[in-house]
């Protein structure tokens, strides 16, 4: 699955990284790659959807990044 969106850091529950895609959908990235940890960065991602994950953050749909590029 391909996602184009903006990197965001959420302060909830102590803080975590996610992506808000161009359609406004939220995606949580449990293991955000270091180079993408830039608030507001525009990115294009190739991801795998992680279905059914439960997390204390409870924000967005969890995804695993397979490949990425900064725009």
């Amino acid at each position, binding site marked *: 699955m391909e996602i184009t969106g903006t990197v965001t850091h*959420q*302060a*909830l*529950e*102590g*803080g*975590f990284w996610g992506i808000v895609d161009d359609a406004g959908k*939220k995606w949580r990235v*449990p293991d955000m790659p270091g180079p993408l940890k830039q608030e507001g960065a525009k990115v294009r991602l190739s991801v*795998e959807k*992680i*279905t*059914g*994950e*439960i*997390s*204390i*953050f*409870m*924000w*967005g*749909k*969890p995804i*695993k990044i397979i490949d990425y590029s900064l725009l």
Partner: protein
Amino acid sequence: MQNLYEIGFFATVISAIGWFWLKSIAISTTFFGRSFWFSLALYVLGFFFEDVSLFLKLFLMLPMDVAIFVLVVILFNKYVSSSKVLLSVVAIGLLVVKLLLFDTAAEAYTRWFGETTAQTSVATPPNVAADGELLLDLARGRSLAELAPLFAQYGVTYQKAFPKLEREDFSDLEEFYVLNLADVHAGAFQALSNAIMATGVADAVETNEVIRIEPIASRPPLASDLNFGLNDPGIGNLWGFQAMQMGEFYTLLRNSGAKPQKVAKIAILDTGVDGAHEDLSGSYASTNRDYDRDKVGHGTHCAGIAGAVSNNAKGIASFAPASGFVQITSIKVLSDFGSGTQQGIINGIIEAADLGVDVISMSLGGPTSDQAQRAYAEAVKYANQAGAIVVVAAGNDDENALDFAPANVTGVITVAAIDDKLNKADFSNFVQDLKMGVAAPGVNIYSAFPNNEYKFLSGTSMATPYVAGLVGLMKSLRPSLTTAQIHQILQDTGATTKAGPQTGQLIQPAKAIAGLVNGL
């Protein structure tokens, strides 16, 4: 096509045996001759399409098949006259290896040489436990033995999912098993789940989900000048105390002379709790030393909200005005890396219930498409039967908590978060479609952190222990209260937020305990 290889192989061997035997006693071999060629064609097709790597096919499966076949030909060929005892032993040995040990050999091969079969090209997703991928709810009157062929196919081992149950009559949890697929088949857990459901042996098969948390960070405070008559230095940071009219609450407790009927235990199911924290140690009861540490900080923060020692000139205050009302305990269900499994959490609920706790506080959860959540529901039923009230976070996605678990589980009180303006916190899920939703402060909440520190955190995780703390106090005053009764009191006495039904009623502790205090 799934069993074509096995069917083809054994049909070929049996046809060859029949062919040679009939020929030896001079009876027509036409049928077995045709059967042999047809079976051989099936075998070739099955071998070609078998979902195993080419290396394993060429160097393990094919040599063994050829060896077995050659031995069978020799054994049943009348023109071979030498002793066949040794050949028979070798043939039987090879067949046993093929029937019983092939999966083990393939798994060992994969482990030693790192090659995976085609089925493992889909690895276990990070949200599914690698050791115990599935939870199976066995149907009444059925047996796992009925699944033996499927288990053999996927290399499944299994065990009771919740072996620590002390009271099996409280729920159906004794019918749950955790299934562990062989590593070479780990990615096929969904296919196995579908296949099991097709047999009717299981009422449900769920993935054993992994719980994961992230590092902790702080946010700036929202300060207040009020101290509510207490000497805890951090109490001015607790804006929620104003929203919950805690001054009235403490006054009512003081003036009524209310005495606890019991010390209510509140179990924090989380990353552990720093039980030695200066503002917790006076109200903390350890049940397991492994649970008394918290490298993440999340569990300690929640514990402080639910039951920090009040009026001790340290840190913050809680609903417990003095010792003797509530105790905090910890059940560590998440690892030091911030992850756990659904099975582990349910075992934590069972453990808490068996310890006789009065409140179980769970600041965890996540999105789900399964609104039934059978395993969670049975665990909550078990806890409820044991007298425990289960309080759960609504979730932080600004969506319907109906699609979040365990927030959507029958029998839990689900907590939405509000901000200091009594609006729904912009992140909080809404609870109007749940039977028992309530609201509590959840933005910039100041509480304990490991190593005698204090931090501000936001989330429905922080709103949840506020409710758990109040419920603990209510159980202390009236131990017989049930979940439904407590929710009804919170609903009837709560304040309407600006979001109305979206958040449920904001808890108002003084009004919630007024009836209990006056009834003493």
